[in-house]
């Protein structure tokens, strides 16, 4: 069965006065219908840029340099604005970071839902009202709040309202960029649980971007770890947590202090991500890698399949089949 979302060889550049910076480098992704994919990485790894590229929301100075994004069989990049509008919100929707601040403070919740619905479909006022109440109930908000203004709702409720808004047309895919980071710890976990429940009930696929691995550990089907614009490791979630292959994934997992068991010394991953304007030669993680080999600073590792996971690391030698598509990748550069 063909994947719902297919990303091939995606590269995104930022055009700056000082030269072009490649923020996303040749990313390949696949999301099946109903699958929950998490993209995890720290600040500067390119995960948000990747998300924007997938959702067709890039704007200058960011530009798609290469690659394709195929959603439900359609090439998204070549779609014009008009066709995109048909697809937007009906087939896929987006929940942004601090989405609660994206709500118009001057309009009631219902009015904003109505705006969204009218922008993408022709519905009667009655139908709009029904649907708005329905999605609010889905996320656990009393429909009485349709008449409320954003400032009258708490932060958590506003965030849930944004998720409700994303579900208005029951899309096949919901893209989320750190939707919980502005919430308290308990609210975050509760919201994740709710998102998972909704996903299982309504059957939509999720692409979820976060810097907090622990947030998605119980909810995602597959996990993609990004570093310095590249995919470092991609694997089924349980697999990755049990046996992280890439030293960076291992380092990330080990960076969380545990709440039980003996206290052991945490080292984290000292140092910082590389300057993408001048990426290091060879493996990008090598300067911070605790187990780097001499050749790591010379050879660029390719992403290859190892034991059911995809890893970009010279510790896992060829001759495993590299994860590169057989069809040539579309170039978008003149």
């Amino acid at each position, binding site marked *: 069965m063909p994947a719902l979302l297919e990303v091939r060889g995606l590269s995104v550049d*930022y*055009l*700056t*006065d000082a030269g072009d*910076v490649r*923020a996303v480098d040749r990313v390949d992704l696949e999301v099946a219908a109903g699958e929950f994919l998490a993209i995890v990485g720290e*600040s*500067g*790894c*390119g995960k*948000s*840029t990747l998300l*924007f590229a997938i959702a067709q*929301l*890039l*704007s*200058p*100075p*960011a*530009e*798609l340099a290469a690659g394709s994004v195929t959603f439900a069989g359609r090439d998204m990049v*070549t779609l014009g604005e008009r066709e995109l509008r048909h697809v937007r919100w009906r087939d896929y929707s987006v929940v942004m970071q601090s989405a609660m601040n994206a709500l118009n403070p001057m309009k009631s919740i219902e009015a904003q839902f109505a705006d969204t619905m009218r922008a993408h479909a022709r519905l009667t006022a009655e139908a709009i009202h029904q649907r708005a109440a329905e999605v609010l109930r889905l996320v656990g908000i009393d429909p009485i709040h349709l008449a409320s203004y954003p400032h009258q709702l708490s932060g958590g409720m506003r965030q849930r309202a944004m998720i409700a808004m994303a579900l208005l047309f029951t899309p096949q895919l919901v893209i989320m960029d750190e939707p919980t980071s502005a919430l308290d710890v308990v609210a975050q976990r509760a919201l994740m649980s709710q998102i998972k429940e909704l996903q299982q009930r309504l059957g939509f696929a999720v692409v979820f971007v976060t810097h907090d691995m622990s947030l998605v550990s119980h909810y995602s089907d597959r996990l993609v770890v990004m570093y310095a614009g590249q995919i470092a490791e991609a694997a089924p979630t349980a697999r990755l947590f049990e046996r992280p292959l890439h030293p960076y994934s291992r380092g990330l997992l080990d960076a969380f202090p545990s709440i039980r068991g003996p206290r052991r010394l945490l080292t984290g991953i000292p140092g*910082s*991500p590389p*300057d*993408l*304007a001048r990426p290091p030669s060879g493996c990008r993680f090598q300067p911070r890698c605790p187990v780097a080999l001499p050749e790591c600073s010379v050879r660029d590792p390719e992403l290859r399949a190892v034991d059911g996971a995809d890893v970009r690391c010279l510790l896992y030698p060829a001759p495993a089949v590299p994860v590169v598509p057989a069809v040539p990748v*579309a*170039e*978008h*550069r*003149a």
Partner: protein
Amino acid sequence: MTVPLSRPIAAPSAGAARGYRDAGARLGRAILRNRKATIGLGLLVVITFVALFPGMIAPDDPQAAIYGQQLGPSADHLLGTTQVGEDVFSQLIWGTRLTLIITVAVGALTTLISVLVGVTAAYVGGVADRSLSLLTDIFLIIPTLPLLIVLSSYLEGSGTMAIIAVLVVTGWAFGARQLRAQGLTLRTRAYLEAARVRGETSAYIILVEILPNMISLVVASFLGSAVYTVATAAGLQFLGLGNGSEMTWGTMLHFAQQNGAIESGNALWALAPGAAVALLGTSFALLNYAFDEIGNPALRRTRRRRASAA
């Protein structure tokens, strides 16, 4: 919707990532790279040069009424002569100095008062803020032109100082408002709290910690005030509220109008100072735009690569 650059590369605070002394070189380079800034600065440099060394360009005494009256432009008199036989070109050149002095003086004084009032109100807050804001609002509400005319007519004949005073009194409130607004946004920055916890006094915090972060707005305030002054001072002098014996572009306009320069075919007498006023105003305005662009990278023109479909 813009996507921010990855953090480790650069994380400048909005509009304020410049240091005092160490920024000089960076600023210089930025000015040279920005076309508006270069043009504006170029104009200003030329005008300043003319103001400083008028004798080098127009050796004639501008008030010597010795030439033929109402002559048209010629090799001897590039812009012709006035009603009473003075050389218009000389007047234009010699009038530059006082015009520029008035502009810079008003700009500087207005900005100084705006900064003191605005930033203090923002940082100190409470009753002081309320009183200072009330004061600012009163001065903002007063209709400027009638006030200017009334004040000027009281001080008629007192010349430059009067005009400077009048313009400063009516012009400081706008900048104070803006600076207070920016001060309020900066007030919640953690480094100010950190300074308080360190034990710094309020005066120190305002002068050393806050002000350098507001330099771009202070400069913009000065430039904006300069643009306002160039036109308004000329306007007041044109209306005859300046001192006729002082040589400025505004007084030139006044006399040209009084003596029907345009009707009697001696249009250059009126057009030349008018164009000069416009030029000076433009130079400040260009610098103002340029500083906006330098300070706020989001306003800069970005290069685009032409994307072609595969």
